[in-house]
């Protein structure tokens, strides 16, 4: 503390200066050794892209062809960022089936996720019975306005992601 004035002898004064210099030199030697033999830990981002782990929770993607409009994701979501609505299929229509054989009794009329509100907790993907809602590995989706962060998963351009995301090839490679 500044108010405690400690009295030191001349010997101690010079010893503490010597200790300061020698211990700092020891530390600087540790830092100096980083010149050789250390692999760089950073990556040059736009040119080199990191391969994310398989479970990485990035942008949500809903494969609407497999969605049975069960509302589970919207109920579970803690921030209520999933807007889903559906209507009953007409009685004379044939009921299509998802990839795993679940009948789609409802017709999905709206499936929108406000990505700006989403907290990426992953709760919606765990309750999805047909596993159509997944976290993709996309992490570059900055937009100029908040409205652009709302994705309508029934629109054609968002549906086209399916080829990229659900396909076998990983999205980003190093």
């Amino acid at each position, binding site marked *: *503390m*500044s*108010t*405690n*004035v400690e009295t030191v002898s001349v010997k101690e004064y010079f010893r*503490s200066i010597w*200790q*300061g210099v*020698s*211990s*700092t030199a*020891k*530390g600087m030697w*540790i*830092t100096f050794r980083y010149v050789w033999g250390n692999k760089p*830990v950073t990556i040059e981002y736009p040119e080199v892209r990191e391969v*994310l*782990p*398989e*479970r*990485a*929770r990035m942008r949500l993607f809903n494969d609407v062809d497999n969605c049975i409009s069960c509302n589970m994701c919207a109920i*579970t*979501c*803690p921030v209520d960022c999933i807007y889903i609505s559906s209507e009953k299929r007409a009685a004379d229509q044939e009921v299509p089936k998802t990839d795993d054989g679940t009948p789609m009794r409802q017709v999905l009329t709206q499936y929108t996720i406000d990505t700006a509100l989403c*907290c*990426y*907790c*992953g*709760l919606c993907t*765990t309750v999805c019975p047909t596993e159509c809602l997944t*976290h993709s590995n996309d992490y570059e989706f900055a937009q100029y306005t908040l409205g652009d962060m709302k994705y309508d998963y029934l629109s054609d351009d968002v549906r086209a992601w399916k080829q990229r995301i659900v396909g076998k090839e990983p999205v980003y490679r190093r």
Partner: protein
Amino acid sequence: MQTWENSGEKFNPTQTAETEKLKSELLTLNMGPQHPATHGVLRVEIKTDSEVVAHAIPHIGYLHRCMEKHSENLDYRGIIPFVDRMDYLAAMNQEHTYVMAVESMLGTEVPRRAEYIRVLILELQRIASHLMAFGTYALDLGAFSPFLYAFDEREKILRLFEELSGARLLYNYIWIGGVWNDITSAQLYRVKEFCDHFEEELKKYDTLVSQNKIFRERTRHVGIMDEQMCYAYGATGPVLRGAGVKWDLRKVAPYSLYGELDFDVPVGDGDRDAMIGDCYSRYIVRMKEMTESVKIIRQILDGIESGPVIGKVPKVIKLPKGEVYMRTECPRGELGIHLVSDGGKTPYRLKVKSPCFTHTSMLPEIAPGQLIADFVASIGSIDIVLGEVDR
């Protein structure tokens, strides 16, 4: 006119003829909320006389997100992402406390393997959190390279967490009844390699920072929080242990697997010319705790069993009527969660006792008489996260 003479009883610098000449009006200075040395959005209103702090009043609330009230409208699983966001540097420990509170009311049995994974993750998180504290503390005092070395190691832990849970900081990994994903043997092997490597790194940090004379002179005899003061304010964690009190909930009231594990509780003993309860003891307690965490991780790696990672939990969680107070040892101190249920799908009340809030309230006590640079060292040494202070 307010001068330092009538400003407070505590402020009493050495009275000499020179200081008598220099006495002047107090200058009010706002440190923060965007000050890099306040570790987040803490604003400290300082009244200074030249370079000496006469008063320091912390103003909090810049990161208040109404989390406690908001939880009353969420189901029990949906609260976990919000609990994560309290202490974003040690989210696993926060999750674990909340999940244990729910489990104790629900009466869920957690599988053995899940408990092992939990303790492994908690200790890794403790290392990651202390590395952050170590790095930023050195940065506060003017050393830049320890920060980079600490982040290099922390990144390895975060990478493992990302592979396990999918997120780097806000995990939602510890679930009610167990954990989300199983850990593979390849990942366990990587943890073992990390432990071997990290012990070498700790020796390096010791030479680089802990033994450095300049660092020691900056931190010793600064910001003394002694035993009586810690009891008076209710301080916990490294602040209390830095004052020489051997109190660790993992030892005193063992939860999870901690009762079966062998580890020590490091306390500040005033070696290397330090005083018990000063900034250096708090710092050295954290460094020693990392060694103990490595020791625990090694025991977990030896003893981990196979089996399921999540127990039987009802699809819709409804807690019986009642209340529970659960507390665990988080990297920053004791986190307490008071959960009151009225028998519905959502909690009736969720109250969080935050260690950082307690430690922030100790700042006005230690500030008077310090230099501003020493005050920065004091803030850094109590290692607060404002997300937990404000919630």
